[in-house]
C-alpha cells in the first residue's frame, strides 16, 4: 500500500504503483454512482456527468437516489442522496444491474448502497477519507466498522482526501466538494472539460459569477488529483450518429411536451415526484401564454383544469398517487360533462404516503377503475423519456377530439431519469386549434351524440346560442337532468362508445423478438428498457422469449388474445405488488396479481402470470433475466 495512493484491497487488474501510465479499461457499458449526504451536491455531480456524456455521444440513463427528507440527518445510510449514471457506447435504456464505480462522500452513504446490493462484485470505490481521522471518536468507530464490512466484500477501495484538498480553495468544502469529485470523474472518463465547464456555468447562472468560477477551480483540482493518483481510466467510446439529440429527464419532457401540445394551463399541488414538471413549466410556460396554477389542494387543481377546459383552454393537471385519489370525484365530473381533461400521474410507491421518492407502478387499476360509477376514459403510459414528450401531444389530442378524460401514467423512474433522444421536430399540427366560437345554430344540443361514435360538439361560454347548464347529474342530449332510466342507459352508452371508437383506431402492439415461442413478457411504462435488455440477454442464451410493451392500457391495444395464443406462457413484469403463487394461503383463484396481469386476464381470458417487485427501485435487467430463465418452457400458471 503506497502512502501517495491509498488503496485498500487487492485487485489483480490494477497496479497501484503506476499512476503515470494508467491502464485504460475499454467498456461498452459502465455504471457510476455518486452518493453523499443530502445537500452536498452528489446529485448535480452525477447529473453533469450524465448530461456531458450524452452530449459527447454516449448512450446514458441516470437514476436519482433520493432520500424522503429534504435534510435527513448527516452520515446516515437512510439519507444517501445522489445519482446513478449508466454510460454506454450505444443507447442505454435502463439503469442496469449494479454499479461498477462509486464515489462516496462518506462511508455511511456508501454502506447503504452496498447493503442494497447496488455494487458490482469488485467495484471500485472512491471514498472521502476525512472520516478516518475525524476528531469524533464515534465517527472513527463508524468508519472502521464500515471499512471492515466493505473490505470483506472484496471491493477495490481508494481513499480520496477531498476535504483536505478542497481546503486549499474554499473554507467550506462541504459546498464544492462535489465539483472536486466531478473533476476526478472527468479525468477518469476523459470527459470534455469545455462541456463540463459549460454545464457548471449553466447550473450557477442565477448565482454570482464567482460561484461558477470557484467550482471550475475545484473541478480542475479534482482533475489534477486524479491525474496524479489514479492508475486507471475508463473508456466507453461513443458510437457516432448523425441525428440532432436533446437530453432531459421525464418531467422536463412532460413539461416541454405540454408546451408542444399547445397546453395553456397546468394546475397542480406540490407532490413528489410530480412537482418538478411545474417547476420546469414555471421557467417558460408564460412565454407561450401558459399559466401554472398552484391550487389549494389536488381537488382544486383538478377543478381549475376542468373550469379552464370548460371555458375553451387546453388544460391539464399533474399529480402523484395521493393526489390521484383526491381528484377522483372531479374525474367523474369531467367524464360526465365530457369536458376534455389530461391528468399526468407521476407514480410513486403506495398506498397512502408510501414511498414518496421511489418508483412504483401501482396506480394502474386506480387510474382505470378508480372513479366511482361507470366513467369510461383513456389511460396511457409512456415507456421512455422521449415518449414522455410525445405522450402529451397524443393525450391532448385525444382529450379534445373525444371530449374525454385522458390519464397519463408516468413514474418516478421516468420523472428523474435522464436520457438523450432524437430532437423532436415540432409540428404546428400538434398545437390545439382554438375552439369553434361561432354562434350555435338554433336547436343544436350540447350533447348531440352521434349514434355511431358517441361524439358531439361542445359549447364554450361566450359562444352565442350555446347557453346550457352542463351538469354532473345524468342528463339527456340537451343537458336536462335525466329523470327516466332509459336516458341514463343511453347517455352511458354514448360515453362508452367514444372509447370503443378510439380502441378501433389503435394498432396491435409489435413484438420484441419472435412472433411465437415459449415465453412472452408483457410490460407497460418505464420498465421497457430493462425488460428488453433482459430479453435480449436471454435470447443470446438461446431462450425462446419475446416481449411486448403496452402504451394504451384503456382502451387496450387490440389483438392481444391472438398474440398470447402463440406463446406457451404469458407473464407480466411490473413494479407493483403481487402474491407469490406459492405463498401461504395463496390459491390460484385468490392470488393477488400484478395490476396489468389482472387486467389482461379479465380482457383476454388468457391465464397470464406475473412477476412483480416493489423494492423502491427500478427493475434490474439481471433480475428479469432470472425470471425468464426459470419460466421459459414452464407452461401456463396452473
Amino acid at each position: 500500500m503506497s502512502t501517495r495512493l491509498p488503496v485498500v484491497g487487492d485487485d489483480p487488474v490494477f497496479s497501484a504503483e503506476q499512476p503515470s501510465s494508467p491502464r485504460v479499461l475499454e467498456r461498452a457499458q459502465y455504471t457510476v454512482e455518486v452518493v453523499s449526504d443530502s445537500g452536498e451536491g452528489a446529485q448535480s455531480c452525477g447529473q453533469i456527468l450524465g448530461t456531458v456524456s450524452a452530449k459527447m455521444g454516449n448512450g446514458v440513463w441516470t437514476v436519482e437516489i433520493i432520500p424522503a427528507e429534504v435534510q435527513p440527518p448527516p452520515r446516515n445510510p437512510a439519507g444517501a442522496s445522489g445519482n446513478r449514471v449508466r454510460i454506454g457506447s450505444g443507447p442505454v435504456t435502463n439503469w442496469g444491474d449494479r454499479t461498477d464505480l462509486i464515489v462516496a462522500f462518506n462511508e455511511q452513504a456508501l454502506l447503504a448502497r452496498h447493503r442494497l446490493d447496488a455494487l458490482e462484485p469488485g467495484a471500485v470505490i472512491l471514498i472521502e477519507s476525512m472520516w478516518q481521522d475525524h476528531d469524533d471518536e464515534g465517527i472513527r468507530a463508524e468508519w472502521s466498522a464500515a471499512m471492515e464490512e466493505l473490505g470483506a466484500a472484496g471491493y477495490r477501495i481508494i481513499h480520496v482526501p477531498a476535504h483536505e484538498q478542497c481546503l486549499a480553495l474554499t473554507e467550506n468544502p462541504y459546498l464544492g466538494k462535489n465539483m472536486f469529485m466531478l473533476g476526478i470523474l472527468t479525468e477518469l472518463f476523459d470527459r470534455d472539460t469545455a462541456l463540463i465547464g459549460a454545464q457548471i456555468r449553466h447550473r450557477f447562472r442565477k448565482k454570482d459569477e464567482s460561484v461558477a468560477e470557484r467550482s471550475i477551480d475545484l473541478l480542475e483540482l479534482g482533475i489534477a488529483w486524479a491525474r496524479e493518483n489514479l492508475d486507471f481510466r475508463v473508456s466507453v467510446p461513443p458510437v457516432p450518429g448523425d441525428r440532432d439529440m436533446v437530453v432531459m429527464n421525464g418531467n422536463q419532457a412532460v413539461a416541454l411536451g405540454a408546451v408542444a401540445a399547445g397546453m395553456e394551463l397546468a394546475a397542480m399541488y406540490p407532490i413528489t415526484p410530480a412537482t418538478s414538471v411545474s417547476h420546469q413549466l414555471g421557467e417558460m410556460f408564460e412565454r407561450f401564454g401558459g399559466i401554472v396554477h398552484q391550487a389549494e389542494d389536488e381537488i382544486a387543481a383538478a377543478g381549475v383544469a376542468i373550469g379552464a377546459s370548460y371555458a375553451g383552454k387546453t388544460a391539464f393537471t399533474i399529480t402523484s398517487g395521493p393526489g390521484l385519489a383526491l381528484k377522483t370525484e372531479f374525474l367523474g365530473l369531467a367524464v360526465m360533462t365530457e369536458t376534455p381533461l389530461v391528468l399526468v400521474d407521476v407514480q410513486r410507491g403506495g398506498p397512502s404516503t408510501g414511498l414518496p421518492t421511489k418508483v412504483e407502478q401501482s396506480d394502474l387499476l386506480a387510474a382505470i377503475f378508480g372513479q366511482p360509477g361507470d366513467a369510461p376514459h383513456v389511460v396511457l403510459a409512456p415507456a421512455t423519456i422521449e415518449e414522455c414528450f410525445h405522450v402529451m401531444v397524443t393525450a391532448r389530442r385525444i382529450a379534445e377530439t373525444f371530449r374525454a378524460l385522458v390519464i397519463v401514467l408516468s413514474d418516478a423512474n421516468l420523472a428523474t431519469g435522464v436520457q438523450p433522444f432524437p430532437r423532436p421536430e415540432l409540428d404546428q399540427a400538434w398545437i390545439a386549434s382554438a375552439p369553434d366560437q361561432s354562434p350555435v345554430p338554433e336547436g343544436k344540443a350540447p350533447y348531440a351524440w352521434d349514434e355511431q361514435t358517441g361524439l358531439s360538439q361542445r359549447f364554450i361560454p361566450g359562444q352565442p346560442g350555446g347557453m346550457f347548464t352542463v351538469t354532473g347529474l345524468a342528463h339527456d342530449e340537451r343537458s336536462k337532468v335525466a329523470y327516466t332510466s332509459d336516458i341514463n342507459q343511453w347517455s352511458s352508452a354514448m360515453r362508452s362508445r367514444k372509447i370503443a371508437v378510439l380502441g378501433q383506431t389503435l394498432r396491435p402492439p409489435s413484438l420484441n423478438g419472435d412472433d411465437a415461442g415459449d415465453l412472452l413478457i408483457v410490460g407497460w411504462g418505464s420498465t421497457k428498457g430493462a425488460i428488453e435488455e433482459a430479453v435480449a440477454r436471454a435470447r443470446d442464451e438461446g431462450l425462446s422469449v419475446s416481449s411486448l410493451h403496452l402504451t394504451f392500457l384503456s382502451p387496450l391495444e387490440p389483438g392481444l388474445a391472438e398474440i398470447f395464443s402463440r406463446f406457451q406462457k404469458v407473464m407480466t413484469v411490473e413494479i407493483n405488488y403481487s402474491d407469490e403463487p406459492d405463498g401461504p394461503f395463496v390459491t390460484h383463484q385468490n392470488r393477488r396479481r400484478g395490476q396489468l396481469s389482472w387486467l389482461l386476464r379479465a380482457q383476454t381470458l388468457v391465464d397470464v402470470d406475473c412477476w412483480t417487485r416493489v423494492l423502491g427501485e427500478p427493475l434490474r435487467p439481471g433480475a428479469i433475466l432470472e425470471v425468464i430463465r426459470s419460466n421459459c418452457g414452464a407452461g401456463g400458471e396452473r
Partner: protein
Amino acid sequence: MSHSVLPQLKPRDFASDQEVRWCPGCGDYAILKAIQKTLADLEVPREESVFISGIGCSSRFPYYMATYGFHTIHGRAPAVATGTKLANPDLDVWVITGDGDGLSIGGNHLVHALRRNIDLNIILFNNEIYGLTKGQVSPTSKRGTLSPTTPRGSVANPISPATMALGVGARFVARSVDINMGHLVDVLKQAHANRGTSFVEIFQNCIVFNDATFADFTDKAVAKENQLLVEHGQPLLFGVERDRGLRLDPATWTLEVVRPGVNGVTEADVLVHDETNRMLATMLAALEPPGFPMALGVLYRDPAATFDHQVLAQVEPESEGRGLADLLYGGRTWKVG
C-alpha cells in the same frame, strides 16, 4: 360589450326553459327573481354570464338561468370558477353555493378564492341547514339545532360566513335577505360592479327544514326594528323611527346601541359607516339579535388588484411556437458525430 345595440332584456329573458323544482315557499325562488332582475337591469349579454355551482338545493340555481351554467360537484365550484375565469377573464363568473357546500365540504376552496381576490361573484345561500339531504345541521346552524343527526341538539358553534370572509382577506363582503327584493338587487349590482371576489351572504329561508330561523330580523313585524341597512358615509342608524344607532364604547372596544337625544347622546356620537374599514366591518358582521340589529348591505369594500388580472399580466406569449423551437433547438441540442 356594446350595450346600445342589445335589445332591452327583461328578467324573464334570463329564465331558462327548465321547470323550477324547489319546494313551494322556498326562499330560493325570490333569489332567482332578484338575480334575473339584476342581470336584466345590468344588460349583460347572456352568453357572457356563467353560473357555476356545487351541490345542494341552492346549487340547482344554474338550471334556471338562460345563461351558461355548470352544476359541478359538492363544495368545489370556486375551483372550477377559478379555472373558467383564468381561461376567459371577459366572462362574468358567478358562483352559487350553500352553507354546507361553501363552508363545510368546500370551505377550503372558498377561503382561497377569497384570499386570492379572483374576479368572481360568490353568492352564498345561507339557510343554516342542509336542505337537499333533508335537514341535517350545517356549519352555520345555531347551537342547539335539532336535526336527524343531532337529535339532542347540536353543540358546535356556528361559523359566521361574513366574519370568516373578512378574516381571510375578502375585499368585498355584503349581506342581504331573500325577500328584500329591492335591497338584494342593489347589493347584487354592487357585487357585480366590484372587481375581485365579491362575497354576498343571503339569508335564505328553508321552509321545510329550518323555517323561520331568521324570523327575529326578517319577520315583517320586526324587520325595520332589527335590520341595520348600512351605507357608506351614512350614520349607522336603525329602527322604525331610525332613532337608534351604534356607538363605539372606547372602554371595551365594542359596539353599543344608543339613542341620540337620550342620556346626553348626540347624533355625532353615532358611528358613520366606512366600508373601507375592515375592523368596523368585522364588528358589524358579528352583531345579531337579540340586543343588536342584523347588519345588511355592503359591510366591506376595499378593491385591490385581482388575481386573474395579475396572473394574466405575467403571461406574455411570444410569436407562434417560435419560443419552443428555441428551447428545444437552442442550448439543449447538439449533433453527435
